[in-house]
């Protein structure tokens, strides 16, 4: 059944992939190369004196206990965001997969938040959670719960996790819904005839068939939490109070853009890049193997 199209010659195929190759070169290879080069130098902000320092920026990073803390914090943050956004999305997708009235609207409303820019999302959360002027924040304080994310590490972390996860629920929802719909009806019906019900049927029949989607989403969510949450965190807490919500990407911005320490900031970017490459490689291997089966 498989149809393959083989283009003749050498130049025509190259021409066809050229736009993609050019995009990769300009938006990935070039900046990534620059980052790797900068990470081995020490330079003043204006780049008038640039010196090669080898791996000094990296050894400085890893000998700084604050950086190690930041790595741990980022891992916790990413895991929490992925777990929260995926479990909520899965729950919603399972509900939306059924025959219910207004299903179309329900789905549109769930997908909507994905279109909200991170900074906008953060402002919405700010309006809700601000301890003095926020709807929820002020209400909490009034009901005797001391809510102040500007001076409470745990509350600040909880809030940025919730805000970041909320943004990603839509994305996960689309994939879970598609995954659920691609499960053959016959399998479900067979399970039903065998007497498998509710939770048991979900756990032993639906979930295993959904695993490729789950695994794909784990990787995507971890990458999202590691990179795309910058706007949300910066607008909500700027990494504070103390360093309670300073993830690696917030630190890259702070060292590079505010502190103008290009060498250190590039070294941090390279560390992040290695992390993402590792995650992606894992995803390819795992999904590739499943495909072969």
């Amino acid at each position, binding site marked *: 059944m498989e149809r393959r199209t083989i283009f003749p010659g050498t130049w025509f195929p190259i021409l066809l992939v050229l736009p993609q190759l050019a995009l990769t070169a300009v938006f990935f290879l070039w900046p990534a190369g620059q980052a790797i080069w900068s990470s081995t130098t020490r330079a003043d902000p204006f780049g008038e004196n640039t010196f090669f320092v080898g791996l000094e920026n990296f050894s400085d990073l890893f000998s700084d206990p604050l950086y190690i803390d930041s790595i741990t914090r980022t891992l916790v943050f990413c895991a929490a965001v992925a777990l929260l956004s995926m479990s909520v999305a899965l729950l919603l997708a399972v509900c939306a997969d059924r025959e219910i009235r207004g299903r179309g609207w329900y789905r549109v409303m769930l997908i909507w938040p994905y279109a909200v820019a991170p900074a906008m999302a953060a402002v919405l959360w700010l309006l809700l959670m601000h301890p003095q002027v926020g709807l929820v924040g002020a209400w909490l304080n009034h009901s005797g719960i001391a809510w102040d994310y500007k001076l409470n590490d745990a509350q600040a972390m909880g809030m940025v996790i919730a805000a970041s996860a909320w943004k990603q629920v839509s994305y996960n929802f689309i994939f879970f819904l598609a995954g659920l719909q691609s499960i053959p009806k016959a399998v479900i019906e067979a399970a039903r005839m065998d007497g498998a019900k509710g939770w048991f049927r979900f756990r032993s029949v639906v979930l295993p068939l959904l695993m490729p989607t789950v695994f794909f989403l784990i990787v995507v969510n971890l990458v999202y939490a590691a990179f795309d949450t910058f706007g949300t965190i910066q607008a909500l807490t700027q990494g504070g*109070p103390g360093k309670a919500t300073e993830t690696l990407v917030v630190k890259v911005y702070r060292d590079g853009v505010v502190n103008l320490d290009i060498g250190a900031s590039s070294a941090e970017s390279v560390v992040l890049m290695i992390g993402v490459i590792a995650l992606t490689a894992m995803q390819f291997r795992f999904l590739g193997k499943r495909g072969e089966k």
Partner: protein
Amino acid sequence: MQRRTLLTGAAALVAAPLAAPISAHAQAAKTKIVLWHALTGANGEEINRLAREFNASQSDYELEAVFKGSYPETLTANIAAWRAGQAPHLAQIYEVGTGSMLAAGKAVKQVWELAKETGLKIDPASYLPAVRGYYSLSDGRMASMPLNSSTGVMWYNKDAFEVAGLDPEKPPTTWAEFHAATVTLRDKWAKPMMAKSGGPDLVAATSSWFAWIQIEQFGAIHNLPFASKSNGFDGLDAELKFNSPAHAKQLQMLLDLSKEGAFKYAGRDAQPDPLFYSGQAAIGFGSSAGRGDIARNAKFKWAASVIPYDPALTSTPNNTIIGGASLWTMTSPKRTPAEYKGVAAFLQFIGHPDQDMQFHEHTGYVPVTLAGYELAKKQGYYEQAPGADVAIKSLSRGTVTANSKGLRLGRLPEIRNIVYEEVEKALQGQQSAQAALDSAVTRGNKVLREFEKSVRT
């Protein structure tokens, strides 16, 4: 039909340069000057007004003011542009970026160099000492041109003072009086009002720009060093000094007040501002440039007062230090002497007393020249807007010392971030005031050494 349209179009194209030869010629003769800035709202409009009036005042130069984002964004964009050989002629850089700009070498042309090259006459003595000191080399030569300068002040809610039984015309002038006032405000204003109305949380006092006002200004007022080497003016090898027992005692007082519910830390930089504007805080430390916003938002009687001092530390409190930004002349490989002349002409233009006074009155920033201040006084501005001169009085109190001239430290924005982080930990009870300051000094010194290495090696 189609052909005719095309032909007509072609004819128009050919004719266009001939049709308006005179205006095109005049356009070409004008030298274009670009200024990048970070001012928004009323302040942004004001810089556009300066550009408009400068362009109308002469026929040789055309200045274009371009908004480039926040202060850090403008600085970063400026650096990236310089690296690409595309720097603007003038860049507005915030005061804490001064240390980095002074280390910029050939990327900038300092005001004294510009004056020498273009024959521009700029007399440093015509600028307010506290303003010019921040932007001058230690021998007095001016490095950048002051534009918008503010200082820290204490805003207070007169209505709240009255309710609490305090004299609204006598705001606290010492920290001991401040302490007593906040406790009274908490017990006789905040608590009863909240019990009565069930409205929003009220708090006696808050502070914007905590690092700038409660640490940097505190040092200047009491002649305590923020860093060695005259706060960094005399060398890149300066070390931070703001962990003295006096600093720690002051911070501990604020920590204690916070614990007792009489002082509220409501975030970094300007985040606490709305607390005072909305009437939820009776005393709000903030920038004097907040005047316009307060006038627009506050539904109560308010006034400004000089930041309190501690008589046990000094009987003659010093001037406070400035905040805000200055204009730096940037270089570029293709820049012509005529363009530098245009830059010089604009810098001279904004230093004109009348322009300076207008900028002051339209924005709430202080006049940067003595003549501009005199003019505002002569025209009776301070009778119409009482208290508008609190910032100037605060800036010109006493004599400027090595500790009150300002700060000249590389990566100062990062040092401020570190101060915020350590203070936030202390406010949560994770460490004492002394431990917070010690830790901030240790971490800050590391940042200074990194900066020193990056510009020296």
